[in-house]
């Protein structure tokens, strides 16, 4: 439940039991990894072959505002409200 809340997921009661059991099985399975001797081994977060290349600091064309707002959950509202995405009330 706590993990679901951290992930912004709401679950049905039946799902909670099923997921808890399945994730328990998966965690038991990955337990073998914790037994591997990794003393002094550096972690690999990503395979980076060459250092990233800087790009010129020049303004490039970006996405059109109308195109971007077209995928808003409420595109008409987004346009009418002056090009913003609308969300439910944040502050009480």
């Amino acid at each position, binding site marked *: 439940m706590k*993990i*679901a809340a*951290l*992930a*912004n*997921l*709401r*679950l049905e009661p039946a*799902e909670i039991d099923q*997921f808890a059991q*399945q*994730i328990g*099985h*998966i*965690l038991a*399975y*990955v337990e*073998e*990894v*914790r037994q*591997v001797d*990794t003393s002094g*081994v*550096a*972690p*690999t*977060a*990503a*395979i*980076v*072959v*060459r250092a*990233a*290349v800087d*790009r010129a600091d020049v303004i490039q064309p970006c*996405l*059109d505002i109308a*195109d*971007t707002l*077209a*995928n*808003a*959950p*409420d595109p008409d509202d987004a346009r009418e409200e002056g090009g913003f*995405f609308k*969300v*439910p*009330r*944040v502050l*009480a």
Partner: protein
Amino acid sequence: MNGAAIAQLRDEIRSGARSATDVCGEALAGIDALNPSLNAFNTVAADRALARAAAIDADRDRWRDAPLAGVPIAIKDNLCTKGLRTTASSRMLDAYVPPYDATAVRRLEAAGAVIVGKTNCDEFAMGSSNENSAYGPVRNPWALDRTPGGSSGGSAAAVAAQLTPLALGSDTGGSIRQPAALCGIVGVKPTYGRVSRYGLIAFASSLDQVGPLTRTVADAALALGLIAGADAADATCAQEPVADFTAALTGDIRGTRIGVPRALVGDGVDADVSRAFQAALEVLAARGATLVDIELPHARHAIPVYYLVATAEASSNLARYDGVRYGFRARTDNGDLKSMYEATREHGFGAEVKRRIMLGTYVLSAGYYDAYYLKAQQVRTLIVNDYDRAFERADLIAMPTSPTGAFRLGERVADPLQMYLADVFTVSANLAGLPAVSVPCGFTRSDGAPNLGESHPIDGGLPIGLQLTGRRFDESTILRVADAYERDTEWSNQRPPITRP
């Protein structure tokens, strides 16, 4: 159809022997006829494709030298296509129309390709059977009660059934190679950084790569050459020069050292797969390759490492689906923002995606990070080191692509762990960032039916794939060996029962 099928089709179109419109119409007719059985396409872009084909026919001069002039292609539905619905097979993106093209898509269109549709896949590319799609499973053209593999199942089924000669897929833990193997076609997972990930809907950013699925190695080499290379829009895309992969297909593999991890491929492999794999090694040796025994002692940890690393990255990448800027938003009456987030994610994501987000959230959470995520990253280093050592003795490494042929739909749905084991031979190439290709190398014996012998290579059986893994940025060697193998065998010429006439 051994050899350069795409180049042949393109030459017919460029010479005017066939019009791009006719070729496109035939592809669309094939999809109309077979997609009800296969469910390979989420979206068929008939009008868009015909308009594009007509434009190519109307301006033949402009497309005279285009390497894919008029060639119909399919795109996995997790690669953005500007103006063409892109769902990642998720309810979350059911109505999403991207405002931009993925770089790989843009490059293929610039080469003259005609996109006929978007292919079904596991939701957000999470799966090994295509059963996690919001639009239902894809069916294998070799046997409709079987999985095509996943997650690029629709791309593999479309190419195997000859609906298009080329489809793009993505591969995070085997999602191009495993469905290619299970559908009897060729699939390439390029070196990490070889192909831009710009416009690929992210699953696990340190593992994801875009690559081609085709019927022949020559076609894969052509397609890879077009999509590969530096891209300012993806900072992880390498500056490495792109070799002429087609020119690399010389057929000459004399003296090439092929490493075989005997201990790894000994256990848990279906007897038919083992037999086909051994026979494939003999074919390569007969062509002059040298087989050397190698060890990958940490490769047996690849699956657990993968499911820790990939789910951690996924939980972060999929945090963006919150119902604010695009995609599905759940209606909540009088709800606050947090309720909207939670309801959107509850109804927008399927079960496997939720399971992985939660596992990833768990392994990244305070108190468990070092025990799981950091540990997995350290074992990842050991797996990388294993490969680096093996490549001191071998120029490439051979393994089966999948431990079994295509399993039945529904067979592994209830047991996520069993499903994950389908990727036992493919995930380590992603963890180590290495290029790998799957090429057809035989068929299983059909259930209960007698083996009819050499003159009946299919015998109702299911395709088996040979996987060749290479050094970073050395796609040339694995493609050269795969092509040489293809020249000496007839597996790539076999056609499934469900195929375009």
